[in-house]
């Protein structure tokens, strides 16, 4: 999930290269709608934090109510002091600093799926 369409395409391409089947949303409200419609449809969420309407940590909070176990990764370029703690409290499993690299996304997701 990322409101910047080109960054979203880049993320989708990276995830596809890593062997995942990404579904991109450039509006976090659409992402939440899709999760509500079928809370088991996705195996994980990778989302930007700063977005109009629903921010990444809000998306995480709402998702947790529907699916307590789904891994959620939030990337943020800002997130001042305390962002990580706030994100983890919202149910986020992992915080990535933007700009992130493919290896970091790969590593973050691999830890979740290795456990499964």
């Amino acid at each position, binding site marked *: 999930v990322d409101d910047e369409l080109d*960054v979203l395409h880049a993320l989708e391409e990276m995830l596809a290269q890593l062997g995942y089947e990404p579904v991109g949303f450039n509006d976090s409200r659409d992402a939440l709608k899709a999760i509500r419609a079928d809370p088991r449809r996705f195996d994980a969420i990778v989302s930007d934090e700063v977005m109009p309407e629903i921010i990444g940590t809000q998306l995480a909070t709402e998702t947790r109510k529907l699916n307590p176990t789904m891994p959620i990764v939030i990337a943020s370029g800002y997130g001042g002091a305390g962002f990580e703690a706030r994100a983890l409290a919202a149910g986020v499993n992992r915080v990535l600093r933007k700009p992130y690299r493919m290896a970091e996304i790969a590593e973050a997701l691999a830890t979740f799926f290795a456990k499964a």
Partner: protein
Amino acid sequence: MRDSYAYAAEDLVRAGGGPELAWEGATVTTQFQPIYCVRRRTCLGFEALVQARDGAGNHIDSEEFFARAHAGGRPLLDWACRALHLRSYATVDPGDRSLFINVHPEAAVLDARRGRDFGELIRYYGLTPKRVCIEILEQPCSDERLLREAVEGYRALGASIAMDDFGIGSSNFDRVAALRPDVVKIDKSVLNGASGRDKASRALPVMVELLHELEVRVAVEGIETRAGAAAAIEARADYLQGFYFARPAAALGHEAGGFERLDHLLHPTTLAAA
């Protein structure tokens, strides 16, 4: 600062046997085609071209390859190809020739809109922007004003600017006036017309003359025959490129054969007398 997008573009390029780009099931590598300077009889530089293969190793036509990329992914593919070409060139760079890199207009617009620094990518791979010529492709653009801004940005880095495939698509005199390129590359369809005896054969020299009036240097590409090369020289083109002189290749050194052909065209009697 680089963003995740720019990193993604670089991360899609992998080491492999040499640098290669993995893109939606295809593997892409770089090939270099020499561009010759008529006046100096030297190799000005190399155009970086993609060679795409599918999973079974079959060759994919490059136009088809780019056409397959959906509109939203095209700028990312453009950036990933830039990273691929720069990385590939770094492994063969002779140190004194220019590298011509194609840039899609929409990708250029996105560079301007997002403040993406192509110069950082160029320097990362050890080249100076001065030795890079950015070829703006002939495709239409949603925002010609931003395209102009992007081109100004590339120029400010020290790169030179070329317009590709002049004579087709949006590569026309309007764009020459707007972008003020250093070089215009004339599409091969104009050259093909030049070999006939009809009015179309006059198009090439007239076009070259007009572009020279605008203080633009002119390259003729897609030269496949001796007659085509002679027509381009007669039309007073500054630069020549095509299979007749040298095919695209992964390594450099193949430009040498083209010198002989160029020499022979400019001084046809030399060999005959020898």
